[in-house]
C-alpha cells in the first residue's frame, strides 16, 4: 500500500515528476559522458604509449633502467621466452626488442635516430605496426632493409628504395655501422618518434650492434591490461636471483601517470561542481514538493499515520524518481557514449595540433566501462537519497496543527 501510495503520488503532478526525473537523467548522462570521455582519452593515451613505446610489462637487465646502454642488454633465446610464458598463464605473448640511438645518414644529411630491432609479426599483435606503413613494405627478418618514419625520412631527404646508413656504437664499444635499403616509410603516432625512428628486423639489429642473441627489453603482454600488476609481481619472483628487473608501464612512465592524475583531478573538480548544480536542482524540486504538501502530511498524521511511515512513503517517492532518472539516464547515456565511441570527437586545428605535438591522436573517444556506469549512477543516487532526507526530516519535525492549517 505504501509503495502504491508513493507511486501514485509521483504521478499526481506529472510535470513536476518529469522535471525531476529529467534533471536526474541529465545529471546521469552528463556525468557518464564526462567520465567516459576522460577515461576514453586516457585509455587512448595509455594505449598509444604502451603499444608503441613500453608495452604493459618489460623485462630488462637490472642495470638498463639506470644506464640504457647496449652493454646492459641481456641474453634472450627460446628457452628463456618459454620460461617467462610459463610463469603466468595470463601472459598472452612476449615481444623481444633491441633499441639504441645511432646516427642515420642519407646522401647529404645526418640525423640522430632511434633504432629499433623488432620481431614484426609480434609487434603487429601489439600495435598493428604494419598498418602504419604509408609507402613500400615492411622487411623480412634479416633481409637488410629498414622502415623509416616519415619525419626522419623527410629530414634526410630519403624515400623508399634509397639507402640509409646507420652509424653508432654496438655492444661493449664495438663499432656499429651498416647500410640498409629503405623498404618502406611509416607514420608513427607520436610526432617526436616520427622524426627519429628506424625499424629494422631483430636479427639485423643484433648483427649490426654485435649483440647476438641479446635484447634490451622483453615486452610481456597480458591477456588483459588489468592483470599487469599481478603478472609483474609473478615475474619478479620468477626471475629473482637473476640480473633482471621487471617493470610495469606505470613504473616506466611516471610522467604520463602524473599528467593523467592531474587531468583526473581537473575532471573531479568539474564533476564536483556538476554534482552540486544537480543536487541543488533536485533539492529545489523536492523542496517545492514538500512545501506544497505540508497540509497533506499534516492530515495524514492527524488521521493516525505514523511519522516514520509517512517519511518512508516520501522517501520511496524520491527513491522511485531517482531510480527512474538513473535508469533512463543510463540508457540514454549508453547510446550517446556508444555513438561517440564509434564516432570520436575530432579536435579542431589548434588543439588537435597540440595533441599531435604531445604525441597523441587528436581525437576524444569515449569508453563503455561498466564501472563508470556503476559509480556515476551510485553517486547521483546517493545525492538524490541525501536530498530525500529533507522532506523526511521535515515530516519527523512537523507540527501537525500548523501543517493542517496551511
Amino acid at each position, binding site marked *: *500500500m505504501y509503495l502504491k*501510495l508513493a507511486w*501514485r503520488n509521483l504521478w499526481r503532478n506529472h510535470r513536476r515528476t518529469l522535471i525531476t526525473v529529467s534533471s536526474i537523467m541529465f545529471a546521469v548522462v552528463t556525468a557518464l559522458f564526462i567520465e567516459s570521455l576522460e577515461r576514453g582519452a586516457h585509455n587512448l593515451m595509455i594505449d598509444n604509449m604502451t603499444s608503441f613505446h613500453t608495452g604493459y610489462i618489460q623485462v630488462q637487465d637490472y642495470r638498463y633502467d639506470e644506464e640504457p646502454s647496449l652493454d646492459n642488454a641481456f641474453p634472450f633465446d627460446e628457452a628463456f621466452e618459454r620460461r617467462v610464458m610459463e610463469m603466468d598463464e595470463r601472459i598472452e605473448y612476449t615481444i623481444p626488442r633491441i633499441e639504441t640511438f645511432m646516427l642515420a645518414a642519407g646522401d647529404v644529411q645526418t640525423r640522430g635516430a632511434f633504432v629499433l630491432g623488432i620481431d614484426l609479426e609480434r609487434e603487429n599483435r601489439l600495435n598493428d605496426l604494419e598498418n602504419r606503413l604509408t609507402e613500400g613494405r615492411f622487411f623480412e627478418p634479416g633481409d637488410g632493409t629498414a622502415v623509416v618514419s616519415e619525419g626522419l625520412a623527410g629530414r634526410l631527404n630519403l624515400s623508399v628504395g634509397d639507402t640509409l646508413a646507420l652509424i653508432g656504437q654496438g655492444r661493449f664499444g664495438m663499432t656499429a655501422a651498416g647500410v640498409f635499403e629503405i623498404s618502406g616509410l611509416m607514420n608513427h603516432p607520436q610526432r617526436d618518434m616520427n622524426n627519429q625512428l628506424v625499424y629494422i628486423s631483430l636479427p639485423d639489429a643484433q648483427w649490426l650492434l654485435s649483440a647476438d642473441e641479446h635484447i634490451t627489453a622483453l615486452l610481456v603482454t597480458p591477456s588483459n591490461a588489468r592483470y599487469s600488476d599481478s603478472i609483474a609481481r609473478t615475474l619478479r619472483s620468477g626471475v629473482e636471483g637473476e640480473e633482471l628487473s621487471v617493470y610495469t608501464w606505470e613504473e616506466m612512465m611516471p610522467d604520463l601517470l602524473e599528467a593523467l592524475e592531474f587531468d583526473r583531478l581537473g575532471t573531479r573538480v568539474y564533476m564536483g561542481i556538476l554534482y552540486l548544480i544537480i543536487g541543488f536542482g533536485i533539492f529545489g524540486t523536492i523542496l517545492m514538493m514538500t512545501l506544497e504538501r505540508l*497540509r497533506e502530511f499534516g492530515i495524514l*498524521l492527524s*488521521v*493516525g499515520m505514523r511519522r516514520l511511515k509517512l517519511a518512508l512513503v516520501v522517501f520511496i517517492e524520491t527513491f522511485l524518481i531517482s531510480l527512474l532518472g538513473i535508469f533512463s539516464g543510463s540508457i540514454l547515456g549508453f547510446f550517446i557514449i556508444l555513438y561517440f565511441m564509434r564516432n570520436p570527437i575530432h579536435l579542431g586545428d589548434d588543439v588537435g595540433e597540440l595533441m599531435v605535438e604531445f604525441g597523441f591522436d587528436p581525437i576524444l573517444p569515449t569508453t563503455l566501462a561498466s564501472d563508470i556506469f556503476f559509480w556515476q549512477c551510485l553517486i547521483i543516487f546517493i545525492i538524490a537519497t541525501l536530498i530525500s532526507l529533507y522532506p523526511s526530516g521535515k515530516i519527523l519535525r512537523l507540527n*501537525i496543527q500548523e501543517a493542517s492549517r496551511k
Partner: protein
Amino acid sequence: MISEPTQEDKPMSIITTHNLSKVYNPDTVPVHALRDVSLEFEEGEFTTVRGPSGSGKTTLLNMIGGLDEPSSGYVVVDGVRITGMPDRKLINFRLNNIGFVFQSYNLVPVFTAYENVTFIMLLQKSSKKEMDDRAHELLDAVGLSSKLNSRPKELSGGEQQRVAVARALASRPKFILADEPTANLDSKSAMNLLDMMEKMNREENVTFIFSSHDQRVIDRARRVITMVDGAIYSDEKQTPKRTEPAK
C-alpha cells in the same frame, strides 16, 4: 446562561476537558484562543460547538483530538490523559480512538474511495478480509457502494465528505470530531450528510462532536455548546430539528 448539568442517570464521560486554556504568542501579542474550558462529553452524543469565527471552536476540537497542546489544563479521553502524551503514543491513540472529518474533506487524492477507507485500517494492521468487509459496509452505509473505485476528483463535494465520514468510522473510533463538515457543501449535500451521520449516531451509537456555525448542523444537534472569545458562553440540550433545504 450556562445550564446546570443534571446528575440523574448520567452515563460515563468519554471526553473530559479540565480548565483548558490556550494562548498563542504569549511573549509578544498574546491571543487567548481558549479560556478555562471544562466540558464533559458522553458516549452517543450528537453535539455541536458553535460560535463566531475566532471563538475557539476549532482550537477546542484540536485539543480534544490531541492535535494541539493546551497552554494549561488537560484532556482525558476514555480515562486516558492525552495531554502531554508522547507524539508516537498520541498518533496511535488518535488512530484507534478518534475519527476526524475535515472541512475540505482531505482525502488521499491518489486513492480510490475504497482505498481511502481501507488505508486507515491498514495503519491499524487489520486483516485484508476485515478491511474489505468494513470498507464495503461503510461505503454502503454512506451510500457510495457504486463509487468504490472512484478517486476524490471524480466525486462531488458531498460524496467526498461522505467518504471522509466512512474513513473516520473505519477505525471504529470512540468518537468523531467533525470540523465544519458542511462548510463546503451545498444545501442538499449537507442535508444528506447530516442525515447519514444522524443515522449512524442513532443506530450505531457513534459519538459526533461538530464545530460549526452552520445553522443546519446546529439544528440537528441534541447538545449545543456556544463559545465566545475562547470561553463557554452556553451549554444546552435541545430537541433536534431537520431543516429542509431551500427548493
